[in-house]
């Protein structure tokens, strides 16, 4: 690899570490705050440096790729492969950008082997990039899934010429592409089962195996069994044919047995990660009843060792409850009688997370918690979903939490200014319309503003690689994907009682007042009863993004005064004239000062949380 490529990767590693919660290391609050500021400054330096490296080194190479030398191309390929190491996906966006360019080159040169290889890697990159879009409606993500799948489909189509393509590497790419066609969500879930079945038939075909004996056929076949076993979760609608059931049962059995043997050979217990799909398959295929399955899961979760922070234990403590809750969501009649259990389950998870050793912390822990955030069941008098989400933000995404806190404080302060002159300003919102004009109503509105501010960007937790962990400015495709944080946020907040009232702000804070621009399409301002508050959040968020740290990935940055002037210029287009009028009447100063207060408050909260975590970790 070239020096700039090494440096870029190194910077990404450092940035990744900086995005994590700052350990206390015995610091006083003041020293802790200073360290946070220092980390932020370092983050900015590294991102700017990365941009510079790409602009000065990588982009000129891509610009002139048609007559790049063999060595340059090899380095480029190696560099890309380091950007997307399994388990450590440092920069899937750049990975895709590079492989897209290499694919163009291969097509141009009509180099078939290179085309197949690049189609495969572009598919892998897109799978990683779009894999963040969990919990979103298929109609929103379909376009991206298809982009990924068609790469694999085209590469897999060369299977017909398996004999003619004599090198095993290319043949391997074709087979792996064929298997990966079943990655991602399908329009009709049964298609996935059928696709894996066809792949299994191909891989088990002796004729193919004879032609390329050096390929790891067993591994390929085993991986398709894993895919098949995983596809069971799609069978919720019970529309599997007896043949489908047989195929899934068979694959589950093979995966389970192999893991069991491996565990026995290593004198270890079978990981629950493999036990869960096996039991799930038994349930969907009619061997276990739902109650038996739930009891089995409860038994496994209850026996988890809370002092064990290994990946397997982490899975049992956090991820398995996520699946457990998913079943309860699908069969809500089974929730009754389990309320206390659910509450204790969540509290146990939080204690476990609080005590999780900093040095062992990684992506996995956060991913499992994200899974849980999608299936969380809110119980009366139990842990509130809003508290759970807040803990998630504070603990794992401090930068996002700081932004949210600044927006919350500023929204609250701005609303207070408006209410002091126009107490009925927010009366379009039904819950406030019916309240008598008094201090209690005002406080309720301010609390609402703060909540909307805190949770407006919660959808970003789905795609941290594009926000908190990004090591450079976005590219066009990433920007498109990032825009879906609005729909993702709404989907998280809307179904739960403690957060549903914030869903409009999460969905609509990037919409334009005049409806001509902005996103998402699902937000219709004039049909939203909370639009006055969504407008407030949209304005304050926009100001914070321009003046805070979002410029690192959006590329747009202004001083606070410039941002205020720009907002006023967008009056009636991007922003409600009712609000921009208040910016002229003292609102600007009030927001600026609240940003500072919000920053300080957020830092205090981060410090306190680190302290509490330290306590939890003590024996």
């Amino acid at each position, binding site marked *: 690899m070239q020096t700039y490529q090494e440096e870029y990767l190194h910077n990404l590693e450092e940035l990744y570490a900086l995005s994590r919660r700052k350990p206390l290391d015995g610091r006083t609050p003041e020293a802790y705050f200073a360290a946070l500021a220092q980390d932020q400054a370092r983050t900015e330096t590294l991102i700017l440096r990365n*941009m510079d490296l790409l*602009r000065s080194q990588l*982009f*000129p*190479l*891509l*610009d*002139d*790729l*048609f*007559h790049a030398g063999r060595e340059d191309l090899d380095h480029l390929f190696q560099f890309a492969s380091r950007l997307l190491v399994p388990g450590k996906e440092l920069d899937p966006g750049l990975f895709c*950008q590079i492989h897209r*360019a290499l694919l*163009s*080159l291969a*097509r*141009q040169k009509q180099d*078939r082997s290179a085309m197949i290889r690049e189609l495969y890697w572009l598919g892998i990159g897109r799978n990683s990039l779009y894999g963040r879009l969990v919990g979103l409606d298929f109609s929103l993500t*379909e*376009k991206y899934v*298809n*982009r990924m*799948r*068609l*790469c694999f*489909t*085209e590469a*897999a*189509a*060369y299977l*017909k*010429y398996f004999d003619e393509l004599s090198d095993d590497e290319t043949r391997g790419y074709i087979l792996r592409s064929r298997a990966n*066609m079943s990655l991602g969500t*399908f*329009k*009709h879930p049964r*298609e996935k089962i059928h696709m894996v079945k066809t792949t299994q038939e191909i891989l088990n075909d002796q004729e193919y195996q004879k032609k390329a004996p050096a390929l790891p056929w067993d591994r390929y076949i085993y991986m398709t069994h894993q895919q098949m076993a995983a596809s069971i979760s799609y069978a919720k609608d019970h529309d599997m044919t007896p043949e489908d059931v047989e195929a899934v049962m068979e694959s589950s059995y093979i995966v389970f047995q192999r893991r069991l043997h491996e565990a026995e050979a290593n004198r270890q217990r079978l990981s629950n990660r493999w036990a869960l799909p096996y039991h799930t398959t038994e349930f969907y295929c009619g061997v276990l009843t739902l109650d038996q399955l739930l009891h089995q899961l409860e038994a496994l979760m209850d026996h988890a060792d809370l002092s064990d922070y290994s990946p397997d234990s982490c899975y049992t403590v956090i991820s398995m409850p996520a699946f457990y809750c998913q079943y309860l969501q699908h069969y809500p009649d089974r929730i009754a009688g389990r309320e206390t259990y659910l509450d204790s389950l969540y509290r146990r998870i939080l204690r476990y997370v609080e005590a999780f050793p900093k040095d062992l912390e990684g992506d996995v822990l956060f991913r499992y918690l994200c899974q849980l955030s999608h299936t969380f069941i809110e119980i009366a008098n139990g842990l509130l979903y809003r508290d759970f989400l807040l803990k998630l933000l504070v603990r794992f995404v401090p930068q996002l939490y700081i932004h949210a806190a600044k927006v919350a404080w500023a929204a609250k302060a701005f609303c207070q200014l408006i209410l002091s002159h126009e107490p009925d300003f927010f009366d379009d919102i039904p819950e406030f319309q019916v309240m008598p004009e008094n201090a209690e109503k005002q406080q309720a509105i301010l609390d609402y503003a703060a909540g909307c501010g805190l949770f407006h960007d919660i959808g970003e937790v789905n795609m941290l690689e594009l926000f908190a962990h990004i090591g*450079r*400015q*976005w*590219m*066009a495709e990433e*920007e498109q994907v990032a825009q879906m944080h609005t729909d993702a946020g709404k989907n998280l907040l809307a179904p739960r009682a403690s957060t549903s009232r914030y869903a409009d702000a999460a969905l609509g804070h990037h919409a334009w*007042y*005049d*409806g001509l621009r902005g996103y998402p399409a699902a937000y219709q*301002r*004039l049909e939203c009863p909370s639009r006055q508050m969504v407008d407030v959040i949209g304005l304050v968020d926009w100001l914070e993004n321009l003046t805070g740290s979002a410029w690192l990935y*959006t*590329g*747009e940055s202004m001083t606070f005064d410039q941002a205020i002037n720009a907002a006023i210029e967008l009056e*009636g*287009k991007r922003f*409600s*004239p*009712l609000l921009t009028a208040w910016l002229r009447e003292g609102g600007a100063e009030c927001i600026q000062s609240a940003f500072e207060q919000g920053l300080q408050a957020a830092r205090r909260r981060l410090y306190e949380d680190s302290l509490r975590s330290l306590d939890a970790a003590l024996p």
Partner: protein
Amino acid sequence: MEQLESHPATEQQGHLVVERTGAGWRVLFADPSARKLTCLEPGAPADWADLSLRQLDLDRQPLDESHQLWQIGKSADKQAFLQANAALEAALRSAEEANQAKSRFLSSMSHDIRTPMNAIVGMTAIGLSHIDEKARVQDCLSKIQTASSHLMSLVNDVLDMSRIDSGRMTLHEERFSLADLIHDVAVILRPQAAQKQQTLRVEIGDILEEHLLGDPLRLRQILVNIIGNAIKYTQAGGEIQTSFAQRPAQAQRGGASVLLDFSCQDNGIGMSQAFLQRIFLPFERVNNTTISRIEGTGLGMSIVKKLVDSMSGEISVQSQEGQGSLFQVSIPLPVSPQTQNALALPTGGTILVAESWEDRAEKIHQYLTEADLRPVTLPSGMDAVTWLTEAQYENRMPLALLLGQELTDMPTLNLASHVRQLAGQAFPILLASEADWVQLEYRATRAGINAFVPCPLFRSRLLKTLSDLTGGSNGQTGGQSGEIDYSGYRVLLVEDNELNQEIAMELLEMTGVQVETAGDGLQAAEKFEASPPGYYDLIFMDIQMPVMDGYQATRRIRQLAREDAKTVWIVAMTANAFVEDMRLSQEAGMNEHLSKPVDIDRLNEILRGRLGAAPQPGKQ
């Protein structure tokens, strides 16, 4: 009146005694048979208004100066009188019913007119009170627009009816395309059906002649009224199935004619048998509490009936309450004499059809086979990509890819994007869709679609589009047959790197476009400045260049005091892929962004988007 109970003269059958009342006569006494025959009661006016007495042969004898004895004539006259009386009674009932219908019409019209008027007045007031809130005012204006157009349609219906009633409406005869007519109707009505989440299917049966003679405006009115009613009276999520077909008809005026059969079936609220008797009467509407909010004059069906009658056609309707209605219309139409343009379609050429709707796929298959083409139909995007990859490998690419309405696994445009990359820029991709092209055009051309065939699908349109795109070559040559010719257009390529310039020139020249080059931004700006207005259709501008970069050059061009300086399409060519770079390009006045290394497909996407899928050679 009591003193009128008897008179000796009126004891005889058919006699009545009348008394002078100023200018007329009043009945004093009448025997029961005279009363029955004349429907006259004592005290009633006896001559001036009573039509029934005028029908009779009356023998009038003066009794004194102010009284007369009237005797009703012979029994034959009486019989005629009875018949006349019955007819008059029926006419009276009919007039009364018509009067009631008109009263109901007036009452509902005043409601129907008041409703949109209220909206207009109310929304105007709201708009005025929020004049500073653009979005609110915009919302008000759009509601006012909707209400106004509804009001206009009410007035138009009333005027049409009045024209028809007074015999002032004449039918025009002109040449028209049945395909255009049906397409227009579909474009008007599809959004309404979509708003109610209804399925509106338009099926095309056997069409003998697409070019006909008739009054397309009035035909459209008939179709829109019938299908519009079906949409109106069918619940959300319902289904409306329409079909068009032709049969040979008796020759008219020495020329060939066809019978156009149209049917429209819905699963809506249907009509009672009693209402079915009155459906074509003016001012009648289905009275049903579930549809009380449906607006309309009740004139539509009456107008339709009169229009169909005036075209010598027939209309019938069957309906059952709660189950839906079926309207069937047959109209004879003369065939338009036309000059047939020969289509340049290569015999035996393969067309890959990606369509999962069986009916549509069958129809496409039929049309293509009849044109001696060889369709290969696949229902999914993944199958299509696999098939094309194999075809490319085996050097047997089809003439074109025809994308249909739907695929089993993905939206058609997702497939188009990938095929454009896979098969290259010259490969023709057509889309046959029910969507409105105006709505779809931007996304479709960006996805790589070359041409659009509107649905309902007509043979002539499909084959003409294919012929235009494939240019009549015998295909099977890797898609080169569909190469697009932009020889009438001129492009300025601004690029400092010689090799890049060479490659881009080669790619551009493959499309026939005339390419001029500039080695840096300053040269580009000067070349543009020195050219006559409208000389360049497109500028591809590199960003990083010596002397003057692409941003500066674009700014300089945009600032020139000539009209085309503001409008000429400038495309940034750079490997700088950050969102900020795109913003900088936009801020400098560039319209689009092309990543490097230059992707031939993306380049052609831009050419197609700017210069059009069907270029007009000859523009200099």
